[in-house]
């Protein structure tokens, strides 16, 4: 077992991030684990950051890089909103993120999913992975935990879900990824953006569904010994 932990290593967000469009807006979802090597630096981080009133971004990869990029884009979008006289569109936000990601690709390591609602195009999701490509998709997944979700989305995703269906779908997906990916964990946060505004939701671990062979939350694993089953561990 590796007891040598570099606690001063740069913070990386193992992460599972998801963005999904539904009939009327978008739902963004993320886990909450920020790791420094094997150590969990923050088990309740908020990876869904606000860029404008109607556009949010899910961050993955290096925590510092993604924060700096979001900060710059928030600043540019603020100026743009003042000049334009109305809210910026999600396409403009995504393009600004893309320009920073692409032009600094040698120095940055961050994958982002931009999601927002504007009155011209409705709800839109844009994925901006590592190299700085910009791609508009009906749904997008990112982060280390997303590897385990490609098959799930291929099978279970459908166009035009309702708001509640979409949110439950996102929560289910993030919890599946958390179950399988060691670098994702903690709680599930979601943000729903539509014409009426923005709603933030929070799902602590005990509210999430348990998957295959996962144990119920216990006060102590010793309780299992006194339970009905005499052989808690099956080899």
């Amino acid at each position: 077992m590796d007891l040598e932990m570099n606690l001063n290593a740069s913070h990386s967000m193992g992460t599972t991030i998801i963005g999904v469009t539904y009939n009327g807006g978008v739902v963004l979802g993320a886990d909450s684990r920020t790791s420094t090597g094997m150590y969990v630096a923050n088990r309740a981080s908020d990876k869904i950051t606000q860029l404008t009133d109607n556009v949010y971004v899910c961050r993955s990869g290096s925590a510092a890089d993604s924060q700096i990029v979001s900060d710059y884009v928030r600043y540019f979008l603020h100026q743009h909103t003042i000049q334009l006289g109305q809210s910026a569109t999600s396409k403009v936000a995504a393009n600004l993120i893309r320009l920073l990601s692409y032009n600094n690709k040698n120095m940055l390591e961050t994958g982002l999913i931009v999601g927002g609602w504007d009155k011209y195009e409705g709800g839109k999701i844009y994925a901006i992975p590592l190299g700085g490509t910009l791609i508009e998709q009906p749904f997008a997944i990112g982060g280390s935990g997303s590897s385990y979700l490609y098959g799930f989305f291929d099978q279970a995703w459908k166009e035009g879900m309702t708001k509640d269906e979409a949110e439950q779908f996102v929560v289910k997906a993030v919890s599946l990824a958390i179950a399988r990916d060691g670098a994702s964990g903690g709680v599930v946060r979601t943000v729903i953006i539509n014409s009426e505004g923005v709603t933030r939701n929070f799902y602590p671990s005990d509210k999430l569904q348990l998957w295959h062979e996962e144990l119920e939350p216990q006060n102590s694993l010793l309780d299992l010994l006194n339970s009905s089953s005499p052989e808690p561990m099956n080899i």
Partner: protein
Amino acid sequence: MSSIGTGYDLSVTTFSPDGRVFQIEYASKAVDNSGTVIGIKCKDGIVMGVEKLIASKMMLPGSNRRILSVHRHSGMAVAGLAADGRQIVARAKSEATSYQSVYGEPIPVKELAERVASYVHLCTLYWWLRPFGCGVILGGYDRDGPQLYMVEPSGISYRYFGAAVGKGKQAAKTEIEKLKLSEMTCREGVIEVAKM
């Protein structure tokens, strides 16, 4: 009507005692003495028309264009000094393409008009520059529909349903006011503009 500035009109950086900048007014005179240019906003787009002044019989038709495109969705018609107009169009083109590269969408017409207006105004602030001797009618179609702006040599810009500059602007404006623009399509608008 020639107003004598008596010494307050030698530089664009001098105000007269009654609060006017004569150089800018003289620039507007250059526009007023040129061929008429009109623009109207129809239901589904903008129609612009220019009075074609044939300076010489030897000139080829189709040369000396005074209606120029700025971007895929916008264009300008120029009245006044044609060379000055070319500069303004070049600047507008560059603003439009740089906006598109940075923000990923075509420049909103309002934004373009503001940028052109502030560029024209810039040249009224320094003594080593002279004001542009041309008025520009800017038309474009963005997400909020068709829009028409006019930029004068002083740098002010307003949004219009119908605008006219040049020699016959008074007559043209009277004609435009008679039209029912909110119900007209561009096809019908072209015919009306040609008649003027």
